[in-house]
């Protein structure tokens, strides 16, 4: 069978919803023989300096942890850090580098509690030109 997906972009943010997203991504990559790119976007406009520090710390740790988790299951994966507005950056990379699926948690790291869909996921869903899998 032809491959359903080849390259999957998985934005990760260290929120408590992330592990489910990573598990789904690994399972899908395994079955479809595709590769994963775990992307952490350091938000250029953090609310506080403390938040920026936390993001910097997260950015060096989280995508790499995800990559190792995938590698441990024999899934080809890479980790990567970008700086910018999260949703815009995710969409832009997906388009520019021709990812064929974005797997994203519907709720992320935010103090605002949107019922079922976070703002980054919402914007990615609205703007992406490839399929988007929202993990609830």
């Amino acid at each position: 069978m032809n491959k359903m997906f080849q390259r999957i972009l998985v934005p990760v943010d260290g929120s408590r919803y992330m592990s489910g997203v990573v598990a789904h991504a690994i399972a899908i990559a395994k079955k479809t023989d595709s590769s994963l790119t775990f992307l952490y976007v350091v938000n250029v406009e953090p609310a506080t300096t403390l938040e920026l520090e936390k993001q910097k710390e997260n950015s060096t740790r989280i995508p790499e942890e995800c990559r190792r988790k995938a590698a441990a299951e024999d899934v080809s994966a890479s980790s990567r850090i970008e700086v910018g507005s999260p949703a815009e950056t995710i969409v832009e990379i997906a388009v520019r580098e021709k990812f064929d699926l974005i797997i994203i948690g519907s709720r992320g790291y935010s103090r605002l509690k949107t019922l079922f869909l976070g703002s980054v996921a919402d914007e990615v869903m609205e703007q992406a030109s490839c399929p988007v899998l929202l993990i609830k």
Partner: protein
Amino acid sequence: MVEKILVAVDGSETMERTVRFACDLVKVMGGSLTLIHVVDVPVMIQPNLMFDSTPLIQDGEMILRTAQKQVEQNGLKADIILKQEGGNAGHRIVAVAEEQGFTLIVMHTRGKASGILVGSVCHTVAHNASCSVLILRP
């Protein structure tokens, strides 16, 4: 992770791709398929005006049968669900997903002419579903 998949079909030109995608997904990932079509019954401004929704329901049945046949041609099986809703079909899709314990909703966004922005049904489902949602593009 075997998914119980609900595929929203609308009879548009993108339906075939949606169904094909869902079939490929099940072949690779496992899981079951159910096709849903929501008949958009106009909300009456004057309630005493009777609206005969029979033709719409017949259309809906036809859409579901076409999609089901396509699933069968892929060597798979699919259940079908036909619902009526006055207003946004998305709410009905979310309700069915919840009532019947679906784990994934697959749908195509019809979007605007640019083919980028998400349509209102898709939007409603993405915002309100408590299960995962896979959104395909035109």
